[in-house]
């Protein structure tokens, strides 16, 4: 039996009916990974995964996700399993602790088969900045899968795993989900613990999930999200069952279209898909309302002050002293710092650290960092106002479909604009997701649904209803002609 492209729920059922054993499932997974050409994984966890699968088959482990193989983005610390964050500086780093998200998923019984490739320290939108090589898009191996969670997205899209974790700082779940034709969700900031998640920009980073559909994402969120005393920014809200409202009727619901999100200069296919999706929601009884978010145009520049500033400080701990890469043949301490960091970090990481250092430095703080924090509030206020009028906001997930590897590496700003539609939700902290909703020249494109604070259930409900009435999400790279 082929397990490729099966959903989480389907595999769960097969396991429950004992149509397949967890061991077979995990063994098959590693077989598929070994023949894959997408470079989705940095580190495999074969021995431990097979042992855990056997334990499940012998009835020794339970849980909602018991016996199911999943992949972890290599940004989550995994106890005794190498965690690189896509960087040379952590090439040999073996954490003595689990991220809370990893712990939660493990407690639910899932089996981690390996750590997925990613842009170095999650800085990138194409997965080309990984020290461990670019990830290839399973729909077209010459193209990028998006980033930074490109390995996770590609692994799910290729059917190597039915689910994977990701993190989203400016679109790092939604953009690769869109470019790989799968479903990905970033919950409200603070829903998932950041403990053990290697920080890029602490006030923006949020863990989330990739799966083949919204229902599976809801199931995953049930375990990914939790209050955590170890994370001061973790929300203390009661645990929610994200599956509960997934079948609600959309009749009378209001969907906001942001006036300032100009899609008229995007490709015809992107525009057409967007119009088609609107029609589908209309047929399900939802209404469209134009909302004005005048400050949303400030999102990308705001983000490129806040995120680099935080990252410049967050990445200071990688200094070659306590763990991680240390350069050889150093003259003195300064030399050790400079060589270890310069040899350990790639160019994009260096660029962002330098930008962050610059905007925080004496004399520039007010002009950049403070200003960006002020515009961040203005953007947040736009969301608060919009959500007083509508239930969800809808936009394309990314400006285009997957681009060719190497085509945007020369111009960082062009790359930054990949996150044009996704960045604002991180600045405001609201939940958002991407679902597949069409193709542009045989390449998938995504639809973004943004929800109000703590309204993950609402966007999952919209997404699930959409997927019940469309088949974009069940297409896969082996599907043949997708036009």
């Amino acid at each position, binding site marked *: 039996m082929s397990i490729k492209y099966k959903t989480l729920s389907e595999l769960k059922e097969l396991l429950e009916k004992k149509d397949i054993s967890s061991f077979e499932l995990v063994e098959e997974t590693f077989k598929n990974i070994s023949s894959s050409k997408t470079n989705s994984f940095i580190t495999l966890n074969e021995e431990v995964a097979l042992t855990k699968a056997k334990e499940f088959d012998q009835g020794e482990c339970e849980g909602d996700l018991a016996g199911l193989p999943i992949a972890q983005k290599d940004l*989550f*610390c995994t106890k005794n399993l190498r*965690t690189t*964050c896509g960087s040379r500086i*952590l090439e040999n*780093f073996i*954490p*003595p*602790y689990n*991220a809370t998200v990893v712990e939660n998923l493990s407690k639910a019984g899932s089996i981690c088969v390996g750590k997925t490739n990613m842009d170095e320290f999650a800085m990138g939108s194409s997965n080309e900045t990984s020290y461990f090589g670019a990830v290839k898009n399973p729909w077209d191996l010459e193209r990028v899968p998006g980033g930074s969670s490109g390995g996770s997205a590609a692994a799910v899209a290729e059917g190597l795993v039915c689910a994977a974790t990701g993190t989203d700082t400016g679109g790092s779940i939604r953009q690769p989900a869109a470019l790989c034709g799968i479903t990905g969700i970033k919950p409200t900031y603070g829903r998932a613990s*950041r*403990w*053990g*998640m*290697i*920080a890029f*920009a*602490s*006030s923006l980073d949020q863990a989330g999930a990739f799966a083949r559909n919204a229902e599976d994402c809801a199931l995953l969120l049930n375990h990914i999200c939790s209050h955590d*005393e*170890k*994370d*001061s*920014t973790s929300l203390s809200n009661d645990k929610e069952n994200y599956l509960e409202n997934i079948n609600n009727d959309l009749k009378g619901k209001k969907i906001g279209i942001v006036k300032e999100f100009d899609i008229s200069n995007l490709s015809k296919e992107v525009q057409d898909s967007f119009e088609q999706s609107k029609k589908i929601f209309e047929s399900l009884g939802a209404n469209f309302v134009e909302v004005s978010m005048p400050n949303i145009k400030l999102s990308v520049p705001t983000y490129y002050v806040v995120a680099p*500033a*935080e990252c*410049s*400080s967050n*990445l*200071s*701990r*990688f*200094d070659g*002293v*306590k*763990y991680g890469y240390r350069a050889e043949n150093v003259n003195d*301490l*300064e030399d050790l*710092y400079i060589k270890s960091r310069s040899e350990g970090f790639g160019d994009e990481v260096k660029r962002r650290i330098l930008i962050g*250092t610059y905007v*925080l*430095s*004496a004399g520039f*703080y007010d002009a950049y*960092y403070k200003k960006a924090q002020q515009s961040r509030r203005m953007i947040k206020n736009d969301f608060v106002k919009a959500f007083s009028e509508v239930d969800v906001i809808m936009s394309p997930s990314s400006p285009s479909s997957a681009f060719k590897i190497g085509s945007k590496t020369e111009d960082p700003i062009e790359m930054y604009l990949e996150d044009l539609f996704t960045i604002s939700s991180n600045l405001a902290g609201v939940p958002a997701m991407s679902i597949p909703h069409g193709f542009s020249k045989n390449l998938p494109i995504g639809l973004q649904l943004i929800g109000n604070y703590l309204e993950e259930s609402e966007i999952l409900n919209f997404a699930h209803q959409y997927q019940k009435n469309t088949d974009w999400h069940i297409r896969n790279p082996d599907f043949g002609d997708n036009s």
Partner: protein
Amino acid sequence: MSWETVIGLEVHAQLSTSTKLFSSASTKFGSEPNTQVDLVDLGLPGVLPVVNKDAFKKAITFGLAINADINQESTFDRKNYFYPDLPKGYQITQMTQPIVEGGSIEINVDGNIKTINITRAHLEEDAGKSIHDAYPDKSVIDLNRAGTPLLEIVSEPEISSAKEAVSYMKALHQLVTFLDVCDGDMSQGSLRCDANVSIRKVGDSELGTRTEIKNINSFKFIEKAINFEIKRQIKVLENGDKVIQETRLYDSLKDETRPMRSKEFANDYRYFPDPDLLPVIISDDEMDEIKDSFPELPNEKSKRYISELKIDENEAQIVSSSRELSIFFELAVDSESDPKLAANLLVGEIGSLLNKDNIKINESNLSSDNFNTLLKRISDGTISKKIAKTVLADIWDSGKDADEIIKNQGLVQIQDESIIQDVAQKILEANPDQVAAFKGGKDKLFGFFVGQVMKETQGKANPKSVNDILKKLLS
């Protein structure tokens, strides 16, 4: 030309919490290197800080004691710089909204009271320790201290001499130990200070260029370091040179300050709000709780000792000046033991013993219970005050129970007047010349007779009875 000195002190007080400011690792001093290091203290990737409630309680207690404003909403910022004992590459501190602002401390310099205003007191984490003498060509890092909560107390530049600086530091020391905010152990670095020193011509309104002397950890060194630095700066200016703004170290062996060679001057700390920590709010209820458990301060204690316990003013001040001494005193005194006697012994006899051994009362062999017993035995007439000193000396060496010493050494006071009468009679008979002289008007000889009786009874005779009986026999 005459110069005046302007000094501002930044005092770092390690808060006496059990755990670190942002992790649950112990802050105990003197453990094996790197054994009190949590994931957070090592600054591992992805780990996060959570604030220690008690550190806030202690900081606020200090703030209340100096009549400062307490910011019930305070925030944490990151101070970014690279140093091997700073594991995260930044120190978490309170730059923009410190927990304590304003307030003042009174200092006493040769009997003159001066008020030093406090700019702010903020919470921050301590760094680890770099040790430079373990290997010839390497330094080693111990992170046990990394993350220990510090209260940095910043004074206004209102201190005008090394002597005042020492008084200020002593006043702070007394306060923080009394409040149980810091253990005050300067030799272990629990309380240390950075001194910003500048000089200017008398009458100038603008401040001169200052230098900062880092990490001075004793009262003596504060005085010496500042005095050296003042002299150095005067020499520089009188030679027509300029004082360079720099950080200097005090070398106690050479008794001099010298510039630090590290490139710290090239730093730009790039402070910004720590995104891992949200604003810390102290509720009104929490404030009330802290106020309710606020300890009595030396001044109030001294006043209470005088008015309620009728203690001599000077003795009351001395007993209340140290936390250990006042706790000891209060534990030892009860309805059956005389507070005046207690204070008198603490200041006199016990004070000299403490000075001699250079220890604190809680480090001595004398427990408050045992002292209480001793006081009772004096009050109930079992022993005289004089004998009490003998007993005390024994306790000081052996730590034995007062009653046991009195019993074993037969020190119980002679109360039986017939015994005293017999002894007195014998003394008078043996000294007929003196008796005649006394009767002839030499009153001073009365003391001689008392002394002889006491000598004969090895000091155990009840002094009052001796007096009464001698008077009767000699009349």
